[in-house]
């Protein structure tokens, strides 16, 4: 038994024979050609076949992964028929009288080299695209098969790393998992594995050896362990672990349609965070009670210019209609800080996290804000809408935003455009100022939602983009949790509800704390809904609440 370690990037346990991905690395022999026209035609035929194959791959990619993935192959198509590329190949065949394989291979090296020496890392990476296209043409010229899986049984697929054109054409039914020498959590292999729901382990380096081919292997995507020729005990342990994972998944499925209620009868709503209308599908399949945060930025980020009122209206309406009466809270545009958009032409700032962002931009550019609010109110006729303002620090900001809402409603009324009179207005609590002023702010709105990522950053004075801060950036810090408690208490005194829509909402270590504090709603990514529901249903708060609250006011280290 040999155990080697990599980095797990897609969870699950896979067992089966290890199989190394075969590339069509046909040996290229140099030949001198007599009939150069025939050789040129042979290249033109192979080029046409490559373009046809790439077209099919583009279609396949479009179905599996969308337009962006498809465009990669369309770019490859254009490279295959690039005039300079073709000219270079033609020169080698017709003037040097060499065979097409050599002509493509030399041209490929030359163009790849050209990209590799550019001063831009993105362009350097395009060298791989030129090589990918060229090896496809060479494979066609040699009559070689492009890397299939020549096995009757499903395998654990090993490779150095897989190119997108390779992953897309694999027979997915034959793959139990991936093991690669290189790559990262964001490489194509990792993304594909997570979509397929199978394990993937990357970054094995030299420890992944060809000699393991064909041997029985177990991979554990949660730990990154790869075990070759496992002994009986290991095998039994991994089978048990796999069964446990499957059973847990199955158990989670049974929670669909169940209430989010503790053993002692405490209820909490579990909503979802989404970033585009397509995510609604995931909300519904994971049985989210509603949408606690719909980030409207996608409309602005995916556009070359300000999205029109109608474009926005259609997107909001789609989500509200699809959610079929369940609550949908849409956050008004939250750009600035780490999200920059060119056409906003925001001036450069020394410290954008504390600069012109979110509601501050909306209130400074009323026309743009009015367009978004009109679209939102028009959409309110199609479901249960909540509107939420980000980055609030003062009461006057909320009043100004609400005033604009009233003016938009009056406009729509005058135009005879339908809208709902029951739209809830809320604010994000993500600055210490908003938390401290929550007693006053609670009189202005219908709900609060704590954005814990920013609240942590601003409370602890820790830049969330700075990975070096390590233990200083502690979202479990009692300062953050005490602020949340203060916000909840002030909200409840004024009869409004409070949610949490930051990453902490899904942190199962804090679920009991939030229940103790009295948070009314947790908004999390769709996949986190059922595990969170499970945690809620398995806890009994009757004896814990007091202890947790005491600990919170006492000392961080005593926090349960």
């Amino acid at each position: 038994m040999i155990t080697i370690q990599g980095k797990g990037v897609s969870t699950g346990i896979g067992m089966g024979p290890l199989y190394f991905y075969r590339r069509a690395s046909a040996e290229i022999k140099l030949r001198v050609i007599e009939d150069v026209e025939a050789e040129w035609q042979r290249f033109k035929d192979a080029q046409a076949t490559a373009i046809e194959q790439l077209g099919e791959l583009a279609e396949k990619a479009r179905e599996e992964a969308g337009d962006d993935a498809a465009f990669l192959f369309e770019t490859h198509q254009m490279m295959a028929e690039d005039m300079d590329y073709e000219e270079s190949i033609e020169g080698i065949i017709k003037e040097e009288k060499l065979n097409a394989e050599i002509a493509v291979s030399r041209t490929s090296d030359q163009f790849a080299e050209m990209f590799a020496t550019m001063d831009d890392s993105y362009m350097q990476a395009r060298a791989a695209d030129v090589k990918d296209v060229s090896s496809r043409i060479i494979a066609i010229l040699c009559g070689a098969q492009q890397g299939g899986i020549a096995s009757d049984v499903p395998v654990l697929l090993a490779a150095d790393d897989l190119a997108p054109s390779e992953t897309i054409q694999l027979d997915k039914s034959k793959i139990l998992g991936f093991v690669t020498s290189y790559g990262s959590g964001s490489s194509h292999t990792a993304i594909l594995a997570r979509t397929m729901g199978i394990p993937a382990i990357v970054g094995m380096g030299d420890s992944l050896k060809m000699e393991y081919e064909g041997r029985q292997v177990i991979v554990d995507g949660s730990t990154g362990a790869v075990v070759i020729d496992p002994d009986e005990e290991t095998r039994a342990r991994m089978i048990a672990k796999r069964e446990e994972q499957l059973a847990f998944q199955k158990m989670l499925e049974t929670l669909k349609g169940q209430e989010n209620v503790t053993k002692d009868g405490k209820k909490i709503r579990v909503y979802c965070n989404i970033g585009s209308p397509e995510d609604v599908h995931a909300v519904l399949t994971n049985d989210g009670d509603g949408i606690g945060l719909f980030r409207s930025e996608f409309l602005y980020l995916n556009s070359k210019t300000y999205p029109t009122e109608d474009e926005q209206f259609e997107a909001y309406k789609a989500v509200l209609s699809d959610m079929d009466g369940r609550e949908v809270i849409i956050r008004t545009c939250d750009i600035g800080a780490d999200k920059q958009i060119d056409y906003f032409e925001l001036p450069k700032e020394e410290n954008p996290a504390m600069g012109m962002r979110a509601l501050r931009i909306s209130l400074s550019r009323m026309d743009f804000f009015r367009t978004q609010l009109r679209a939102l109110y028009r959409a309110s006729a199609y479901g249960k809408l909540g509107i939420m303002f980000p980055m609030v620090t003062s009461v006057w900001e909320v009043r100004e935003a609400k005033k604009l809402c009233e003016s938009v409603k009056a406009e729509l009324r005058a135009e005879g455009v339908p809208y709902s009179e029951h739209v809830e207005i809320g604010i994000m609590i993500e600055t210490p100022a908003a938390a401290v002023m929550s007693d006053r702010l609670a009189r202005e709105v219908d709900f609060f939602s704590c954005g814990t990522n920013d609240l942590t950053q601003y409370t602890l004075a820790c830049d969330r983009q700075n990975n070096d801060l390590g233990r200083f950036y502690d979202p479990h810090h009692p300062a953050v949790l005490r602020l949340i408690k203060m916000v909840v208490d002030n909200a409840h005194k004024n009869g409004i509800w409070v949610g949490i829509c930051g990453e902490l909402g899904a942190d199962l270590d804090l679920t009991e704390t939030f229940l103790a504090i009295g948070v009314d709603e947790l908004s999390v990514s769709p996949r986190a809904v059922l595990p969170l529901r499970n945690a809620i249903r398995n806890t009994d708060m009757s004896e814990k609440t007091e202890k947790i609250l005491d600990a919170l006011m006492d000392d961080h280290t005593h926090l349960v």
Partner: protein
Amino acid sequence: MYQFSYTIKDPVGIHARPAGLLSKEGKKYKSAITVEKNGTEVNVLKLMALMKLGVKCGETVNVKIEGEDEAVAGPAMEAFFNANL
């Protein structure tokens, strides 16, 4: 000849995707369409040469459209740059 200069607004510059779109657009016309940066002029149909120009966000290029349909192709290309780059 139709000519205009354009400052790239796309944050990624003329990378693979925008270059591909530009090549595709250029194929629609009979005119020769070229993009020039710092004295190097490239036909937009030559995708790899276009990428090799390495045009970044904020840089200015001169675009020339010359040929029988330049009266149509010129404004169309200008609109294309404004919308996509």
